[in-house]
């Protein structure tokens, strides 16, 4: 049995005090195995981004424990890489300097990261754009930089907060295909936040369907589609069956609310 990469125990997250307090997360128990690709699926306001922020260390839970490879999570750190929805690149740095930012912070000599940086730039298809500035890139290209930047950190876990949510449908498909091929190559533990059912099924080994107010995990759904996967799967029968199951879960939740 593989070691647990991410462990959340009895997590509660409340914002505010007294009568106006909001329960963002309540009673979350979650164990994610090493090398597992997990998608957190839910409507906006279900606390899925809050959940990711807890693992990243951007926020602290009101109650409960978060640990990554046995280490309790305190502050953010390079062993937990984050890919943000709006890329969050430094606009004054070139693509290259954005990608190697973590290495420069750590004081790593260029000889130690140069070759790996070039490898990841090639892997995300950014060859030739090293000297471009973020403002010269499209939304999809910016996310490629964000992914390469996260890969260079060689993190224990990769946290992705709706990274393709702001992209147009066609670019999103391209980026999903790219992420599938990258994951097949590097096999990181991934927590992928999304509200897109197809995206969750296509990418993940396990989909957690969340419900809102308070944010809870409603269903755990293993996706046993064979890998390597391609975006063509979306039209497959087995894919459709999974989609229907999740759809029913969500509709049940909506009727409940």
């Amino acid at each position, binding site marked *: 049995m593989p070691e647990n990469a991410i462990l959340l125990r009895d997590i509660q997250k409340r914002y505010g005090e007294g009568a106006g307090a909001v329960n963002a997360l309540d009673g979350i128990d979650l164990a994610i195995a090493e090398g597992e690709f997990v998608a957190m699926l839910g409507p906006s306001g279900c606390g899925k981004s809050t959940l990711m922020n807890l693992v*990243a*260390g*951007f926020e602290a839970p009101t109650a409960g424990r978060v640990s990554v490879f046995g280490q309790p999570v305190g*502050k*953010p*750190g*390079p062993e*937990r*890489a*984050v890919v*943000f929805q*709006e890329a*969050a*690149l*430094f*606009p*004054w740095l070139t693509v290259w300097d954005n990608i190697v*930012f*973590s290495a420069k*912070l*750590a004081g790593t000599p260029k000889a130690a990261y140069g070759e790996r940086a070039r490898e990841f730039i090639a892997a995300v298809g950014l060859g030739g754009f090293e000297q471009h*500035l973020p*403002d*010269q890139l499209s939304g999809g290209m910016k996310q490629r930089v964000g992914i390469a*930047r996260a890969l260079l*950190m060689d993190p224990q876990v990769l946290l992705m907060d709706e990274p393709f949510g702001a992209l147009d449908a066609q670019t999103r498909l391209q980026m999903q295909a790219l992420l599938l091929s990258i994951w097949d190559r590097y096999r990181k533990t991934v927590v992928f936040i999304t509200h897109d059912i197809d995206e969750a099924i296509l990418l993940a080994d396990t989909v957690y369907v969340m419900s809102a107010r308070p944010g809870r995990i409603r269903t755990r759904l293993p996706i046993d589609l064979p890998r390597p996967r391609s975006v063509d799967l979306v039209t497959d029968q087995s894919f459709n069956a999974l989609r229907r199951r999740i759809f029913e879960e969500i509709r049940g939740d909506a009727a409940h609310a």
Partner: protein
Amino acid sequence: MKAAGRLTTQQRSAVSAPRVVAVRWGRLIRTCQTLLLPIVILALWELSGRLNLIPAGLLPPPSRVAVGWWAWAFGPAGLGLNPYSGTWAGNVAFSGLRVFEGFGVAILVGVPLGILIGWSRLAARLVDPTVQALRPVPITAWLPFSIAIFGIRDIGSIFLIALGAFYPIVINSAHGARDVGRNLIRAAEMMGASPLQLLWRVAFPAALPAIFTGLRIGLGIAWTAVIVSEMVAVKSGLGYVLWDAYYVGRMDVVIADMVSIGLAGFLSDLVIVLIERRALGWKHLHRR
């Protein structure tokens, strides 16, 4: 017939030659429009002097200002008849150096302090109320205080310049550091940035556009401060000559002095703009 949308070289030059001429004409006409008002003002001013509508002692015409300026700039120095002769460059240097020193102090104190105020709530609580309380006191009101403390010496002038330039620099730097996007900070944190690295590698570059805004406003105030302080608190520089020339009725030198101040302010601002353009190349992408 060639493929649609393509022109041979001959055809292209036949089309583009008149267009180039038209573009040049347009530019020339726009330049004339820009220069029209200054030329009219200068002409009316010269004419009213020649026709003795305004006494030359009160407002000498441009031609006499030019002659006076020439003597001030290039005349032999040290002759009794014209005490200003040949002293222009020296006085420009005096004022320029004071601005340089006072403005430099304002930058060295204002930028780091502003970033700290914008970045740390503790620093904001400790320093910001004092800065905000002192700010409404205009630098002209500090003149007697400055003379009492520093006497009629350079340091008093530099103090006023530094103080005047300090406020816009510190306030804009604080504003810039406060407005750094939360996700940029989080991105740096998750990549392992220490608090000092966050300050230097994220807050500072992110605040740089606002800092430059503060520098340009501060430089304008620095030139105001140097002229005011030289009129009262020291015995050299463009401000001193301005007041002195007025007292002895040399209005040609007064006007030449005013134009010199304007030019110095314009050129020093240009230096800041050029540095800004280099430092903030990433901000000016769309203009490339």
